[in-house]
């Protein structure tokens, strides 16, 4: 209710301001209180934006007060189901709206088995953001160092700037070390590909998986796991927080010491069964259940690595429709 009053007040303020500004032009143009110019148009734009923001906000809040959550969601669902673009119903997911779209992981055919699973790109995103930060930070430190050096050379030392370079430089050193360690981990250990014979996965069914590890290194151990992870997003004060919990873990494959050489990648095959009581993959705005195949490796003279390959588990049905059979 408070928000509705705020937006209504904003709307009224906008109307009054606009009326005043325009009315002066007709009532007493000789006074030239608001002469047509930059200031006039700025006032008009501000008043119109007040009217627009206030009016929209007020209508939305009133609509929220007058309609229930279910009614709003039903209207939103109806609107989203409208085929405005005329694309037809080639991707009808009306029965499984909360299961992530299968098309995202079935668009890449495999060499040995039907599908090659995409890798979760979170580490790559961290590396890209990290590289931008390192470049910006170290550039800033270099510029400050140049200024401080020049000041010293000219005989007018800037001691505050010089001393502040010590913590700045230390932070830059540790950030660079972290970045290159991550870079080495991501690029030094060769690419990992995971292929699977069928998608989506269904509870109580057995699937075949093939892991191919490229590179030039000696592994002490390689483990392949099937994981189910719950994810919750929530607000704590003004912060948006995530919490994840692994609720199921199954070791699909465990390989001891082995050598990988260029041209002779490590190829591992295994079968696994999705548990019969498995909850299907689920994704909503603030909660999710993810299933993934995880490849963990401990390599000699390399940092250990862990790579995730999401899969999608559908709910068990009495008569399972064959959605994909490319194996």
């Amino acid at each position: 209710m408070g928000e509705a009053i705020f937006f209504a007040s904003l709307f009224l303020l906008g109307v009054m301001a606009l009326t005043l500004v325009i009315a002066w032009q007709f009532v007493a143009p000789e006074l030239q209180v608001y002469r047509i110019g930059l200031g006039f148009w700025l006032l008009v734009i501000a008043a119109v934006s007040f009217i627009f923001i206030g009016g929209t906000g007020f209508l939305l809040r009133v609509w929220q007060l007058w309609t229930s959550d279910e009614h709003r969601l039903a209207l939103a669902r109806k609107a989203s189901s409208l085929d405005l673009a005329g694309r037809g119903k080639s991707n009808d997911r009306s029965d499984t709206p909360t299961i992530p779209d299968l098309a995202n992981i079935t668009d890449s055919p495999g060499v040995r088995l039907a599908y090659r699973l995409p890798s979760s790109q979170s580490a790559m995103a961290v590396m890209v953001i990290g590289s931008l930060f390192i470049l910006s930070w170290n550039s800033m430190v270099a510029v400050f160092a140049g200024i401080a050096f020049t000041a010293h050379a000219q005989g007018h030392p800037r001691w505050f700037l010089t001393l502040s370079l010590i913590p700045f430089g230390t932070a830059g050193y540790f950030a660079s070390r972290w970045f290159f360690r991550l870079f080495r981990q991501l690029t030094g250990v060769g690419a990992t590909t995971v292929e699977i014979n069928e998608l989506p996965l269904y509870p109580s069914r057995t699937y075949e998986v093939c892991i191919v590890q490229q590179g030039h290194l000696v592994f002490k151990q390689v483990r392949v796991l099937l994981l189910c992870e719950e994810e919750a997003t929530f607000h704590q004060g003004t912060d948006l927080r995530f919490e994840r919990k692994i609720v199921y873990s199954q070791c699909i494959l465990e390989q001891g010491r082995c050598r990988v050489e260029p041209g002779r990648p490590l190829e591992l095959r295994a079968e696994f069964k999705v548990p019969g009581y498995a909850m299907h993959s689920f994704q909503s705005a603030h909660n999710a259940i993810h299933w993934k195949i995880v490849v963990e490796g401990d390599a000699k003279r390399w940092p250990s690595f862990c790579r995730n390959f999401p899969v999608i588990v559908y709910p068990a049905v009495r008569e399972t429709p064959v959605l994909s059979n490319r194996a």
Partner: protein
Amino acid sequence: MSIRLLSLQPCFEPGDVLEGEYSIAPFLLLDRVQRSSNLLAYVPRGVAAKNNAPNSVQGLELSLIWYTEGKGTEDIGVHYFERFSANDLYQNVANRTCNFAVKLPLSPLSYEGYLMKLRWCVRARLFTTKGNEVCTQLPFYLGQVTREV
């Protein structure tokens, strides 16, 4: 106002048809019921006195929803939604057709997890002419995954 499922157990499989019925306290429809003498049997004794300050039904929303509980912010999804006006409700009561039947979807299934729980329910929201709102819901299980794996 109350909701009742017609099945013996509140457990359903994906694709099943959920059947139920709703009922509304007769005094909420009194102003309309009194226009029809054959429906006076619905009015309990002493209820007519309440008619001095009429608080009758404006509408009813019946929905079949899933919602999450747990650590994360609550999410809600609507599978079925229907809004009945006062006239619709009066007709339904008069014709004794306060039943509903909804085909259940394949997902999401009911789930009791560690960080989140997913629940299904039939929810009825009654709006009165005085601006009051009465909400009642009846939970049920969809599927057999009722705990974390």
